[in-house]
């Protein structure tokens, strides 16, 4: 039996998000929350292979209670069980603290029922760090394959899988030992239209919520703001460069325009560079 574990996140729909020009922060008000798209594709792959091999898909997420909607959506997409790790003390977590909480949670779930493959999206579309998956793999001392785009085979008997990984120049075909972690790009699987029984089950489903109180014993110093050494010094949008000055040849004539341009270049101290480039 194949046991896949998928970590998912709820994110603001960044396709219609604005940045506050004053503070540089994302304006989250009124922006719909969605299932992080990469996670959704990763989940679809996990469900696809569960259906091929038999077994189950467990979904886990860390976040506020509003994430329950996302976990229900995971059930709709074919997950069997969902866990939300949620506590006010987890608030303000950076990728280090988040990977700690998720790693400890997954360690616990693995003790209950050993996991063959852990799926993450390659990154979340809000922070775009792509750090939490690798962070969890490191903490769990698991092999990891990032940018996975296709699972060719999973052999539970031989305890290995063959997975394609996209790099900037080519596709690598990698043989991996199980258990293993994949961080997935969208090509990993199409998201199917869920059957009605799965939708109905999801609408009635309440994910199990784990907190600081248990069952996992978290180290208070490693969660939330306390466990997050990242300091955001400043956020902002890059300023667009000022457009250059234009000299209209129709108004002043070509000769005068060239002369004026050269004079400006000389006074700016870039003339030799311009001439050098022309050589």
């Amino acid at each position: 039996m194949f046991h896949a574990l998928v970590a998912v996140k709820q994110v603001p729909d960044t396709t219609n998000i604005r940045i506050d020009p004053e503070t540089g922060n994302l304006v989250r008000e009124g922006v719909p929350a969605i299932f992080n798209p990469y996670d959704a594709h990763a989940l679809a792959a996990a469900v696809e292979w569960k259906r091929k091999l038999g077994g189950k898909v467990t979904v886990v997420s860390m976040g506020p209670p509003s994430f329950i909607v996302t976990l229900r959506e995971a059930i709709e997409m074919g997950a069997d069980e969902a866990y939300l790790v949620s506590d006010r003390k987890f608030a303000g977590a950076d990728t280090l603290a988040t990977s700690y909480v998720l790693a400890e949670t997954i360690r616990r779930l693995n003790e209950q029922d050993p996991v063959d493959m852990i799926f993450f999206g390659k990154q979340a579309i809000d922070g775009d760090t792509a750090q939490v998956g690798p962070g969890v793999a490191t903490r769990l001392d698991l092999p990891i394959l990032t940018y996975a785009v296709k699972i060719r085979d999973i052999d539970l008997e031989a305890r290995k899988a063959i997975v394609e990984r996209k790099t900037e120049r080519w596709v690598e075909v990698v043989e991996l030992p199980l258990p293993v972690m994949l961080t997935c790009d969208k090509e990993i699987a199409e998201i199917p239209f869920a059957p009605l029984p799965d939708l109905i089950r999801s609408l009635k489903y309440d994910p199990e919520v784990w907190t600081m109180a248990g069952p996992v014993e978290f180290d208070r110093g490693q969660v939330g703001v306390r466990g997050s050494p990242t300091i955001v010094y400043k956020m902002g949008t890059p300023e667009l460069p000022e457009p250059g000055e234009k000299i209209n040849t129709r108004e002043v004539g070509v000769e005068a325009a060239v002369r004026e341009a050269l004079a400006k270049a000389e006074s700016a101290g870039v003339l030799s560079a311009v001439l050098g480039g022309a050589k």
Partner: protein
Amino acid sequence: MSDNEQIRFDAVVVGAGMAGSAAAIVLGKAGLNVALIERGQKAGSKNYFGGALYTHALKEVLPDFMDRKPPFERPVTEAGFWFLSRDGGLMKATIEGGKLAETELPDAYITMRAAFDAWWAKQAQEAGAFLIPKTTVVDFIRDEQGQVIGVQTDRPQGDIYAPVVIICEGVNNLLTQKLGLARRDVEPAHAALAFKQVISLPMETINARFGLPDDAHGLAVSVLGDVSLGLPGMGFVYTNKKSISVGLGVMLDTLAEYRLRPYDVLQRYLQHPAIAPLVEGGQLLEYGAHLIPEGGWRDMPQLYAGGVMVAGDAAAMVNALHWEGTNMAMIAGKLAAETAIEAHKRGDFSAASLARYRDKLQDRFILQDLKQYRNFARFLETHPQFMDVYPNFLNSALADFFSAYGKPKKVLFREIFGELTHRRPLLKAVGDMISMGKAVMGW
């Protein structure tokens, strides 16, 4: 749930709009296991109107609705008609205070459907209905006699069985047609395309521009006259809390015949000298449109068959002149639900058993009004002078009446009268009034 297990409910309601959620509230309260199926991401995501909701219908379906904090914008404290003339004039015939203020509960609330429908469906859920979103009913399941015993959805393994189905699918009534209850699509000559802009403005600006003391006061007006290029159409203005809804409805065949783009008609309306200052400086929040089935009585499908009933826009339950539709939908949904509950008690879902639904509608204003207004749908089309000649005349006459030109009033009145007879021969004008009366009274 195993794959071969059938999904069963006591009743299925198709569409979580005004009628559908009302039906589901009543069924749920009666303890029936009801599935409320909505094709949108959530209830309200496909719906759009002017508009204002009438409290009498809300109260009838859900007596404690006010305690459940419906997401209303403002109560309607001023209502009536505005007449725009071609030369930029605006004549207002609105009522505020008086009867409108007498009742403890305002008669109507200005509302945005996206927010309201989500809340309305939530009331159905709290009454015990099971809301299934993101799912479209595409066909029916029938027994050997052809009686409906469930629905097919667009999802894999998507069949849902129920002995009674209430169809509240809206104006595009494909399922009603599939059953043969409606013969064809709503005809373009019987459907209005209503389109509007929601324009954001500070609350204080809205209050100042419309003469409203605060956001507990709101204005809802029908705008006639120079609204839609002299073609049959009616405009509207509603004040929300921090925005205003301005739009108009034009018959679909008119738009087609004159090759008009709705957006252009709306732009022109918004530029009318009487409208432009109201929206000035506002930021466009939304632009949307929805079809309204205005065929009424003449387009009404057969309202029931074995195992099914039809309510709301799908059954052309709209009284265009009075902006009524949502109230009819809610009450029809409730009456269909009551019929379904009685059918459950009898264990008989045949057409003969569900015929009670039609009787109930007949006992109420719904079928009575729709029958009375059966000729009105085409009235404005055959009498375009009501959109053009009369509003212009009224504006001009009123301007004359309240101007001192320094001439004898006898002369002035003769001029005003002369203007009318110039615009429309007297006999024809009298004839227009009589046919208007007939269309409204249903003679």
